C-alpha cells in the first residue's frame, strides 16, 4: 500500500512539473530540483547533480531523462515508468487536442498572420539558443577550444550548404562523425601518452 502511494505521488509530481513548465528541459531542471530534492527528498543534492549531468549528456529529451532517473532512484523500474508517464501524459493530451483543430484555425486570416510573425520569432529563439551554446563551448581555455571551434564551424557550414542546395550531409551523420573524431583523438592521445611514459 505504501509503495502504491509512492508511485501515485511520483506520477502526480512529474505530471505537475510537466504541465507547468514552458520551454522544455532546461527550464524543467530547476522545477525538478524544487519538487524532488527540496520538497520530497527523493534525491539528495549530490544525486541531483549526477542527474543533471547524465540527463544533459545522454541523448533524448532532458525532461524524460530526468524523470526516468529520478523515478528509478525512488522506486526502481516501475518508478521510472510511472515518472516518465507522468512527464508525457499532460503534453500528450494538450498537443493532441490542439492537433485536431490546428490546420483549421490556420484558415483564419488573423491566425495565419499571427503564425507568420511567430515563425520569425521561433527562428530567432533557435539562433539565440545556438549562440548561447556556442559561447558556453568557446568560453574555455584558448588552446582547448581550437578543435571544438573547428567542429562548430564545420557543423554550421555543412548544414548551411545543404540548405542552400549544395553538399548535403544528414545531421545524424554529422553528430556521429564528430563523436567518432573525438574518440579517435582521445585514443591517439592516450596511446602516445602511454608510449612516452
Amino acid at each position, binding site marked *: 500500500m505504501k509503495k502504491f502511494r509512492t508511485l501515485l505521488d511520483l506520477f502526480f509530481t512529474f505530471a505537475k512539473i510537466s504541465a507547468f513548465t514552458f520551454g522544455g528541459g532546461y527550464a524543467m531542471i530547476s522545477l525538478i530540483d524544487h519538487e524532488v530534492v527540496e520538497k520530497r527528498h527523493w534525491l539528495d543534492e549530490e544525486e541531483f547533480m549526477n542527474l543533471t549531468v547524465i540527463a544533459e549528456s545522454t*541523448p533524448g*529529451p532532458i525532461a524524460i531523462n530526468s524523470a526516468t532517473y529520478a523515478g528509478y532512484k525512488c522506486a526502481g523500474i516501475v518508478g521510472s515508468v510511472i515518472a516518465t508517464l507522468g512527464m508525457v501524459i499532460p503534453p*500528450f493530451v494538450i*498537443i493532441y487536442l490542439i492537433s485536431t483543430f490546428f490546420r483549421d484555425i490556420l484558415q483564419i486570416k488573423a491566425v495565419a498572420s499571427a503564425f507568420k510573425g*511567430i515563425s*520569425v520569432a521561433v527562428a530567432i529563439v533557435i539562433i539565440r539558443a545556438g549562440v548561447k551554446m*556556442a559561447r558556453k563551448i568557446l568560453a574555455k581555455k584558448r588552446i582547448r577550444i581550437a578543435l571544438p571551434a573547428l567542429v562548430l564551424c564545420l557543423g554550421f557550414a555543412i548544414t548551411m550548404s545543404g540548405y542552400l542546395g549544395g553538399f548535403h550531409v544528414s545531421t545524424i551523420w554529422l553528430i556521429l562523425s564528430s563523436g567518432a573524431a573525438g574518440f579517435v583523438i582521445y585514443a591517439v592521445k592516450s596511446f602516445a601518452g602511454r608510449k612516452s611514459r
Partner: protein
Amino acid sequence: MIFLELFLAFFKIGLFTFGGAYGAIPIIRETVLTKGWLTEGMFSYFLGVAESTPGPIMVNLATYVGSDQAGIAGSAVATLGVILPSFIIILLIVSLLRSFIEKDSVQAVLNLIKPCIAGVILAAGTSMLLTNLIESVKSPDFSYQGAIIGAIVVGVSIFYKKVRKKESSPILLIVFAAVLGIIFYGY
C-alpha cells in the same frame, strides 16, 4: 506502414539528439521535410505552439506530427518512439554503468558532439530565418514584413536582457511576434 515509419523516425530522433530540444529541432525538421510530413511553414508554425505549450518540446512535436499523420494512434506511436531511447539509456546507466558518463573517453566523444550540435542549431535557425525573409533560395522574394518583425524581436530580446539582466522567455517573444504578425500581415 505509417505507424512503423513514425515510430522508427522518432526513435532515431530520440536516439541522436543531444543537448535538449534545440539539438532536436534540426533533426526533426530534416525528418519531417524529407518525409513530406510537414511543410517548412507548418513546421515553424507548430514549433511556435510547441514552445508556448507546457511539456518537453520533443514530446510536443512527436505528438503533433503523429496525430497529423495518423490520428491518436499515430501520436501515441511517435511519442513512444521519441522517449524510448532515453528511457532505455538512462535505465542502463543508472542500473549498470554508474560511472560511464565520467569516463574520459565518453567525455572526449561528447566534447566534439556538443560543438557540432551548436553549429547545426545555428544553421537550422539561420535557414529558418532566411525562409521567413526570402521564401526560397532559388527564387528569392524579399519580405520586408518579415525583416521588420525580425528586427523588432531581436531588439526586444536584447533590450530585455540589458534591463532585466536575464534572458526573455521564448513565449514572451512568440506572443510579441504574433501581435506583430497580425499588424504587418493583416487580419
